[in-house]
């Protein structure tokens, strides 16, 4: 495959790994949610790339056009975006409640306190 094709996928991989790394390493809960969003968005880019057709246009039918991008990935990603934001909303309300209960959004701190609580 030529370079002109593979840079696209390489970028997708980089974005995905960055997002996942943030999710795995960061203990700040908001940062985790941010990482999750970066991760998901990279998948959106991957899908939309699948839909691209050389020389095509957006899949809105018009008499003078005959080559269109594949509409199916677009449809799927519309759904996925909404699923993503729904997840984010739920995650953030959990973060708010966790902050309310523990006074922090750092997983480490909460674990430390919980560990202390079980010992005492």
């Amino acid at each position, binding site marked *: *495959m030529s370079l002109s094709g*593979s840079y*696209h*996928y390489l*970028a*997708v*991989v*980089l*974005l995905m790994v*960055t*997002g*996942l*790394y943030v999710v*795995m*390493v*960061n*203990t700040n809960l908001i*940062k985790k949610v*941010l990482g999750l*969003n*970066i991760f998901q*968005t990279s998948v*959106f*880019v991957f899908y*939309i790339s*699948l*839909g*691209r*057709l*050389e020389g*095509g246009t*957006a*899949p809105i*039918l018009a008499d003078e056009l005959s080559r269109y*991008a594949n*509409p*199916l*990935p*677009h*449809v*799927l*990603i519309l*759904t996925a*975006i*909404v*699923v993503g*934001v*729904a997840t*984010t*909303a*739920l995650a*953030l*309300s959990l*973060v*708010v*409640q966790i*902050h309310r209960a523990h006074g922090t*959004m*750092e997983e*480490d701190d909460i674990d430390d306190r919980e560990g202390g609580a079980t010992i005492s």
Partner: protein
Amino acid sequence: MSTWHLINAGLLGFMVAVAIAVAALRNLFAAVMLFAIYSLSAATLFVALDAVDVAFTEAAVGAGISSILMLATLAATDGREKQHRHRRALPLVLCLALAVVLFAGLHDLAPVGDPAAPAHVHVAPRYLSETATEVGVPNVVTAVLASYRGYDTLGEAVVIFTAGLGVTALLGGHFRRRRSGKNGDV
């Protein structure tokens, strides 16, 4: 390299840079703002990839609503991430392994835009050729969304309902100050 490729490569490179910056920044407010920029660039990229509906949604939902939700959360909590004792080695190894598996898979696919790719020859052509007669809407994305795969869209609505229900259960009654903003969003 055509202009299209230049724009694409530029946008993708920019996104990678922004994503790494989000990962590195300890100021959460700045990280959220950068994330909004990341989403907007994704939306721009979608326009370049001929996915205007998705671009519009990403801009409104990803860059808009998500960022607002995060800012609202930040306002209700702390703004800074603390320094931590991280274990970085294992996640890094896992991420790299994942990157290899994924890139191997992606590399094997037809190049972006290749008309011979299976995705362009199997199911999709029917949507493009028959929508005009079967559904009668010029925007094929809308037609597929509402008709051929309308059931996914119902599922999507259920997802929103579920999340809304969860947010109400978690914050409803407890969160009067911000109530209108929150519940309206989802």
